[in-house]
């Protein structure tokens, strides 16, 4: 057991810190609005030009070949200095691992570099109006078109995050309607400017146009946009969802940084001297949130130790997803309690503390136990696949 980083890793940290401290923009508007999204894309291009957008990818695709440990270090530094949300995340963290695993060499060369440089911006198309937790219940169909060498899509996807601002969507489509539920689906990548695609933005709980519905009316996609095998989409998609639940999407760095900001908020509120009883009564909650972020960091160190030794997290990634999503809610709730009557003020209000970031963070955190498979579904997975309880 050794909980220290090597000198080379510490040098990597110093290099990342120096660049990020000099370049991270402050006060960007939410990336889930049209205006804010454009500014976030500018930031992503700057990250890419300096070689920091996808540190763990091979150099030929725009990365710097960093190890998993270095990736964790980069994430710690990124969020420590208050780096903006990654509007490229659905591409770089969720689709890319699937392309690395299932993509052809042509697909890798075509998609990965443009993803790294934020020239292509990806959203994901899983949920449909009648298929949420029951993802295998999707109905959107892709019908074979031998003449043109591809597939014709009809149907609808929904809750597509930043769908109104992206130019590509990836998702599951039913290619064999006769097959059993988990068979007969194919993983397709679809350009959102294709003929027959209609995107309608949907305002989220936090007021941003962060969601979208995507309608497909006789949309043609060529065979080279199939990822993995035809009718094998479920297995391919599961590779993505385990990335979504696990550490690639939610590295500990962001939660540790948020927990440190919570400690700082407590100290500022205590120093302000108002409502001392309330501030004092929240000491344990602040400590608990901080410890949970630290526990998540430690659990990740153990998981990554396993990964580098060839042991995958498997179904235990469901435990990870429950933990970080519930930690995020608790952490932001505690901050709002510290703010008391100022908690309700949002970013457009002059009197908002920290620019209304805590209410924004709270609203965003509330989505965590819902997306990427609800926590109820994750608890079923833990019970059945980690503990081995009977399915029926």
């Amino acid at each position, binding site marked *: *057991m*050794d*909980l*220290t*980083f*090597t000198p080379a*890793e510490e040098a990597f940290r110093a290099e990342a810190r120096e660049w990020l401290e000099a370049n991270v923009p402050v006060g960007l508007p939410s990336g889930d609005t049209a205006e804010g999204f454009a500014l976030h894309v500018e930031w992503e291009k700057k990250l890419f030009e300096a070689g920091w957008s996808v540190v763990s990818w091979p150099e030929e695709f725009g990365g710097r070949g960093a190890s998993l*440990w270095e990736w964790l270090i980069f994430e710690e530094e990124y969020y420590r200095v208050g780096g903006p949300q990654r509007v490229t995340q659905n591409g770089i963290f969720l689709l890319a691992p699937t392309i690395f695993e299932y993509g052809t060499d042509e697909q890798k060369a075509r998609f990965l570099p443009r993803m790294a440089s934020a020239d292509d911006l990806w959203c994901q198309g899983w949920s449909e109006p009648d298929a949420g937790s029951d993802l295998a219940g999707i109905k959107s169909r892709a019908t074979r078109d031998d003449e043109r060498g591809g597939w014709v899509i009809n149907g609808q996807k929904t809750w597509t995050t930043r769908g109104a601002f992206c130019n590509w969507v990836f998702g599951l489509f039913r290619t064999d309607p006769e097959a059993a539920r988990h068979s007969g689906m194919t993983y397709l990548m679809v350009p959102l400017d294709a003929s027959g695609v209609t995107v309608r933005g949907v305002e989220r709980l936090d007021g941003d146009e962060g969601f979208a519905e995507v309608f497909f009316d006789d949309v043609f996609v060529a065979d080279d946009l199939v990822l993995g095998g035809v009718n094998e989409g479920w297995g391919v998609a599961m590779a993505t969802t385990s990335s979504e639940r696990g550490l690639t999407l939610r590295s500990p760095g962001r939660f540790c940084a948020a927990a440190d900001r919570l*400690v700082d908020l*407590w*100290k500022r509120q*205590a120093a302000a001297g108002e409502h001392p009883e309330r501030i004092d009564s929240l*000491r*344990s909650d*602040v*400590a*608990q949130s*901080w*410890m*949970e972020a*630290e*526990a*998540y960091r*430690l*659990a990740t*160190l*153990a998981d*990554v*130790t*396993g990964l580098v*030794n060839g042991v995958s997290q498997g179904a*235990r990634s469901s*435990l990870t997803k*429950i*933990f970080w999503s519930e930690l995020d809610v608790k952490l932001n709730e505690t901050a709002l309690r510290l703010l008391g009557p100022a908690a309700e003020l949002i970013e457009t209000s002059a009197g908002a503390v920290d620019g209304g970031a805590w209410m924004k963070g709270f609203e965003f955190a509330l989505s965590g136990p819902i997306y990427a498979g609800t926590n*109820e579904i*994750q*608890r*079923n997975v*833990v*019970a*059945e696949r*980690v*503990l*081995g*309880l*009977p*399915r*029926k």
Partner: protein
Amino acid sequence: MNFAFTDDQLLFRDAVAEFFANECPPEKVRWSWNDEVGRDASIWAALAEMGVIGLTVPEAFGGMGMNEIDLLPILTEAGRYAYPAPLVETVAVVAPLLAESAPAAIAEKWLPGIADGSVIATVQLDGQPFVNDMHIANLLIAQRGDQLFAIPAEHVRSTPQISVDGARRLFSVEWDEADAELIVSGDAALRAADRAFDRGAAATAAQLIGLSEQMIAMTVAYVSDRKQFGVPIGSFQAVKHHLADAELKVSFARPAVWAAAYGLANSSADVDREVSMAKCFASDAAEVVARKALQTHGAIGYTTEHDLHFWLKRSWALASSWGDAAWHRRRVAHLLLDA
């Protein structure tokens, strides 16, 4: 970075686990509840033979000279089997304290006996009202303010206190300084007592992980077998979610406990915070797991005929020993907020 145990550490742990599986089955715990002394000297002797009792005793005194990273996984196994004996006190707390802080004469007097299993030691630090296993101990290490003493058991007057865990043996003790040997005094004694407390807390946290894992295993087995409405009750989502919550608690307490072991073994600058986090999470986890285990066992778990109550009660006892979750959470809050 390598947050894992070595193959040797895991082999040692597995050997001890196998020993407990054979020598300390639930019938042995039940015997301990019902027997007046409740301690099987042959198990202690065998553990000494395996090197477990002398694990933290320096090699110069006949021990293994190992540290908390080696020890805590073994204590997790002791917890898993609800082994009733003062391993935390003797192995995790007293032996390292004597090795680090005692004058040569005192160390030479006691440490070889600890290593060979002939000396059982227990401990009372300021703030701890009761002493474990005084009835079989040969040596009491006790704090009085800024002094730490070694008191041979024959000079300790003890009165039993009855724990909810019938396998525990607790005592109120009295002794006179005239009969005690001074180990260390002043700031050095306070530092030694702090470190001893942290060691006891982390070691107890490790036991709580094993207790929790075993309660989950017993409950998974029970709900997979027990049928109502014609199906195993473990197929019901309400039952599944109880067990998923239990597993969640243990899964994120475990790395905190290993980090505390690492912090103690390497004298980390933040060892007090690391230990408090471990004990806070392990105590909270054990309490949640115990509730979920009882609830999903239903009425059979609410009897003393079923074995579950041995684990429930040990969990309650250890969750509040060496600082309960609230105490350790307050300590972390102090370290984070008042710096």
